[in-house]
């Protein structure tokens, strides 16, 4: 029982961060309908950005070892958002948005090749610039825990760094939901996702809406990446490990649903941690995809997916 609760708690904590990571990708896919294979590598860049902001850019000196990493991670968000903004401006916008009408297969083939190409450049460029040595953003909190209980003679230990990661993820998720549902920008993003042509009739610049979504998506995933880096070491090819989880989360949540992507990521975190109760650790990822297939078998549109076709 204690083991179960411990795994559940660990799953919820990591699930929140996975959820945030998936939301970044889900936002891009939901608004732009572009499958971004490079998203894991944008996250890798986010991890390194947070790492260097912390160690080399003075954040450590200014905020110390405990608060510093989280400041650096939060700062990596805007940096990667800016990076995503220019990648969209220079590359992605040529094969997406209003230019797709004149492209083969609505530009999807070109998007596929382009984002795969960006992924390769980021991975190998990362190898040149950052090297292949494992890096990590360690804080004293990574190796200490809060004890919940004892209650009914049971105690659950929550890793401090992971707990703060989860809280930060949830806070960003709440802010993003407010942005999407309450603000003029958020509503125009949803309108552009629903029907780009009609959005243009409303005076919404669909390409600019896409750029906003792409930048936001990159920034959010970068923060999630930085949070993961407080517990998991990373390297220039780390994106490959996570991009699969991101896609599984987005598909589980329902393609196009932003809030769904969060719950998809949460589910994956829970399954990953709970599976350790009955399976060897090496099979964690196998368990994720077994559950993934099971859910998709019974609910092919995902948790929040709509079966109705977009008009």
């Amino acid at each position: 029982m204690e083991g179960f609760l411990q795994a559940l708690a660990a799953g919820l904590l990591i699930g929140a961060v996975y959820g945030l990571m998936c939301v970044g990708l889900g936002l891009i896919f939901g608004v732009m309908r572009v499958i971004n294979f490079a998203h894991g590598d944008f996250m890798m860049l986010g991890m390194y950005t947070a790492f260097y902001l912390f160690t080399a850019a003075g954040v450590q000196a200014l905020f110390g070892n405990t608060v510093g990493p989280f400041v650096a991670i939060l700062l990596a968000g805007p940096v990667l958002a800016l990076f995503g903004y220019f990648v969209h401006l220079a590359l992605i916008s040529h094969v997406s948005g209003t230019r797709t009408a004149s492209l083969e297969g609505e530009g999807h083939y070109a998007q596929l090749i382009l984002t795969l190409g960006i992924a390769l450049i980021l991975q190998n460029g990362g190898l040149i610039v950052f090297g292949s040595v494992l890096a990590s953003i360690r804080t004293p909190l990574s190796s200490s825990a809060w004890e919940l209980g004892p209650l009914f003679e049971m105690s659950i230990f929550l890793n401090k760094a992971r707990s703060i990661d989860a809280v930060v993820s949830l806070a960003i998720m709440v802010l993003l939901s407010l942005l999407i549902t309450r603000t003029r920008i958020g509503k125009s993003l949803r309108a552009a996702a629903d029907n780009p042509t009609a959005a243009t009739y409303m005076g919404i610049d669909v390409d600019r809406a896409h750029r906003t979504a792409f930048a936001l998506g990159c920034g959010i995933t970068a923060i999630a990446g930085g949070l993961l880096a407080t517990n998991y070491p990373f390297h220039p090819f780390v994106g490959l490990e996570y991009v699969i989880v991101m896609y599984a989360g987005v598909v589980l949540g329902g393609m196009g649903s932003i809030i769904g992507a969060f719950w998809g990521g949460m589910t994956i975190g829970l399954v990953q941690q709970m599976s350790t109760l009955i399976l060897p650790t090496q099979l964690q990822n196998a368990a994720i995809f077994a559950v993934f297939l099971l859910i998709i078998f019974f609910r092919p549109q995902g948790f929040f997916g709509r079966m109705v076709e977009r008009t």
Partner: protein
Amino acid sequence: MLRIEGLSAGYSAKPVLNDVSIDVGAGQFVAIVGPNGAGKTTLFKTISGIVKPSGGAITFDGVDLLAVPPPQRAHLGIAHVPEGRQVFPSLSVMENLEMGAMTESGRRDWQATIERIFDWLPVLKERRNQFAGTMSGGQQQMLAIGRGLASSPKLLMLDEPSMGLAPSTADFIFERLIEIRRQSGLTMLLVEQRVAEALESADRGYVLEAGHVVLEGNNATLRADDRVRKAYLGM
């Protein structure tokens, strides 16, 4: 207000519009009628900038419209109520109307406009928190019209507001449009397959066939024309 001169447009190499000239004066209600595939929707898409013309000119309020990027055209005062309604299904009715009011004039007049829209189309007020995608075709059409009005436009372009609707619903929507025009004096450009109703309520009309304007004139001239009577009015 809107002047289209010698406009040609099409998709890739296939021309759909051929040397089309249309004039809409301020305050006028102009109808464009014609069979399926005549190029009526393409004409509207060209005005809104979704289709790029291969020749000709469009001026709106003295501005060369073809030099204005598509999303900016709504801000000049052109509201396009598209064929097949095209409301935003995952947005609520109210949010759809807010999207209509993305334009500067729409934002400025929002309080007054929304009252008038709810007055004209009360069903939108009743259902303001419902998702647009869950409404019936007729309700979605009213929402599409309301969304167009929410921008406080100078010109309201309506592309087949009766499409796919039950005759009684289509009649109701026509009656609403005439009422809206009577109260607001808004300039309207209507594309319609229901030729009799369209010509009856419009000041002027154009008959578009296979991408050409084959006939134009005021409402009485058109309705008296033999070709129109035979081909469209079934007389």
